[in-house]
């Protein structure tokens, strides 16, 4: 793997430290500067959430709201059934995420590490299904759910994800599983371990960053999903946060402009994800170190 023709350079300790400082400075500059830029949409969201609706679009635009309308958040929490929306969103999200992570990773492991007839064909078909825009399968899917009697319930939002939950996650995890060396598995097989054990005890712990990514993506996708709740959760008692936000879109409101409330609810909707993401960082901080392996 390594070219053995690389020269061995004598590296002074000071040179190493300077180089590392330089790298750190560059990293801070780019990450900080870029991070600030990336945050601009979010700043705008936050700032709009604290204004009166007609103040949002004044010219020239004001970044800092003046006065700061904290009562927007109060209005969202009190006037809007925010807690109910959140509960419904959790019902739609958590079971689906768990199901998706479990079944997708199991399938991905099989596609990556096991041999069986038809493996590549099935994987190919799976991948092909996400190449078709959803608009043209919407009607047959809707009719199917109607025949099953699932319209008006949470089932269309949850059940499909306990059955593999889509090619994206399976594909992603397959790629990760393919990067794990054979040796560990071989050793376990020789020791007489079954494939399920290998999957649970060896592959899974080694893939914690990848599984975390899939869990985050899955959670985010279901948390923010708009179309499925719109089509299948007919009664307002079952609505999720994404519908709640759309209901507050200023232009649709007939009598009142509620853009500021929409921004406030959007901000509230992001907070749990930020918390989740922050907490999940722990899975990223430590790299995976393979011990006991001879390179």
């Amino acid at each position, binding site marked *: 793997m390594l070219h053995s023709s690389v020269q061995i350079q004598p590296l002074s300790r000071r040179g190493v430290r300077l180089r590392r400082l330089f790298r750190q400075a560059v990293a801070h500059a780019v990450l900080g500067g870029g991070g600030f830029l990336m945050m601009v949409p979010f700043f705008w969201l936050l700032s709009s959430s604290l204004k*009166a*609706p*007609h103040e*949002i*679009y*004044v*010219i*020239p635009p004001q970044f800092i709201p003046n006065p700061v309308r904290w009562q927007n958040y109060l209005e969202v929490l009190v*006037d*809007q059934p925010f807690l109910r929306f959140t509960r419904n969103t*959790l*019902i739609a999200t*958590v*079971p689906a995420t*768990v*199901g998706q992570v*479990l079944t997708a990773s199991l399938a991905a492991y099989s596609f990556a590490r096991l041999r069986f007839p038809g493996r590549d064909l099935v994987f190919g078909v799976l991948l092909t299904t996400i190449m078709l825009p959803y608009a043209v399968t*919407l*009607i047959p899917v*809707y*009719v199917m759910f*109607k025949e099953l009697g699932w319209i*008006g*319930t*949470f*089932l269309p*939002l*949850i059940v499909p994800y306990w059955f593999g939950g889509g090619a994206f996650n399976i594909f992603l995890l397959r790629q990760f599983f393919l990067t794990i060396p054979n040796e560990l598995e071989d050793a376990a097989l020789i020791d007489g371990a079954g494939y399920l054990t290998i999957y*649970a*005890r060896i592959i*899974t*712990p*080694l893939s*914690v960053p990848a599984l975390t990514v899939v869990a985050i993506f899955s959670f985010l996708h279901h948390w923010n999903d*708009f*179309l499925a709740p*719109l*089509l299948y959760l*007919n*009664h*307002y008692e*079952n609505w999720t946060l994404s*519908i709640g936000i*759309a*209901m*507050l*879109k*200023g*232009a*649709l*409101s*007939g*009598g*009142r*402009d*509620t853009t500021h409330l929409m921004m406030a609810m959007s901000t509230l909707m992001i907070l749990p994800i930020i918390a989740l993401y922050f907490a999940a960082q722990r899975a990223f901080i*430590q790299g*995976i*170190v393979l*011990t006991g392996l001879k390179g």
Partner: protein
Amino acid sequence: MVRQISRRAVLRLLGGASVLAALGACSPPAPASTPTLAQPAAPPTPTPAAAAPVSVPPARIKFQSRGGDAILKVTQTLVAEFKKAFPRIEVEIDHTTGDHFQKVQLGVAAGNPPDVYFDASLRTGGLGWKKGIIEDLEPYLRRDFNPDEHIKEMWIAMVYDGRRIAVPFDSGAMALFFNIDLLNQASLPLPDPKKRLTWDELVQLATRLTLDVNGKHPGEPGFDPTRIKQYGFAPTLLHGHEHWIYTLGGEIITKEGKVAVASPEAIEGYQKLADWGVKHFVGPSPEYKQANPVGFAAGNVAMSEEGVWMLGRTNDAKINWGVAPFPMQKIPVSYGHYSGQSMTRMSKAKDAAWQWMKWVSLDKEGQTILFKGGLLQPTRKDLIEAFINDSQPPARQYREVFYNELDPTTIRWPGQHQNSFYLGYRQYWIDAWNPRYDPVLRGKKPYREIAQEVQEILQRIIDTGEPATQ
């Protein structure tokens, strides 16, 4: 360092997930009980229907409403009050805030569409009727509709191929809104609600009302059209914009069914429409309007052609405002439209559905709720006084303008001669029109350069009934 996921943790996770899944799956379809309402302005309790309700067998209908939160609340009030008048008809609300028409179509494909839905009649009414989704309301109207109770001009955008296919649920007239404070600040006379401004008068007013960030007016040295802080006049570019052509004596769709957007009057009119921004610099550029759908309510447009549906939002923004009729050049022209509820042909409870539609959209109790909810300018004559005398701004003499503008002698709309709004093809029309008119709006081309091509394409649309493919 290798992490282990204990079996117990996995089981706990699975258990928790299953409980949540069971919770979700087992949540029953919510009962059609009266929900609690959080309404800022409670509508007046309507007096029980004077006439005994028509004896209708018990039925269950599904009403699909659309739009935002305010509309949902009004719909909930309507259902609650309707139940008192018709206790044996259950109304289930299916409120769709995204693409509502898509959901109607899905229901049609699956065989269970809503019985009644609040349509964006001017856009999807025509095609919904032509393709067979919407039921013809003529038989019901001939039996139950009393034209003497209502204003004459109310079926605009709800009539296609000579058939009325919806009953009013929201909207009303359009007019010229003006910001009294901004006019006073500029020491300009307020427009007279009984007079129509001429184009020249409007240009002069608007120029004095347009300010860039340095306080300069258009035409003054140093005026920067890209740094405008306050616009003088925003014409309507979508609803009712045809008045700019009609007022010159032009036509959009002639009596013979010919598209006339390349006639001399149309060329002049469409160019004038674009000139407000391009030449006079008093009208917001399209990119400004894009991000700022409530320009008048944001207080940075002094005069604007708006619909009565903006009333609530303008008041929310605490604007001190007045209303005048649309400007004219040769012929006085006005505009308004109503969006309505339509009945689906596949409905299995049409009589009950009609009872609902009639009570909500044509009877006094329903129209009062729609009016108080800020949705509807009442079409009932016995509610005109209530609308004009309403305590909210604008003042009475301004509110009258909304009814004056619905005068059948001045109101004009494409397809009027055929009693068919845009002949039913407005969706195809605007998809072909917008991308072509856009460069005119931005000042990249004069309208006359594209007029002939546009006319041919639009003519083909209404002749073939097919959308444009170029």
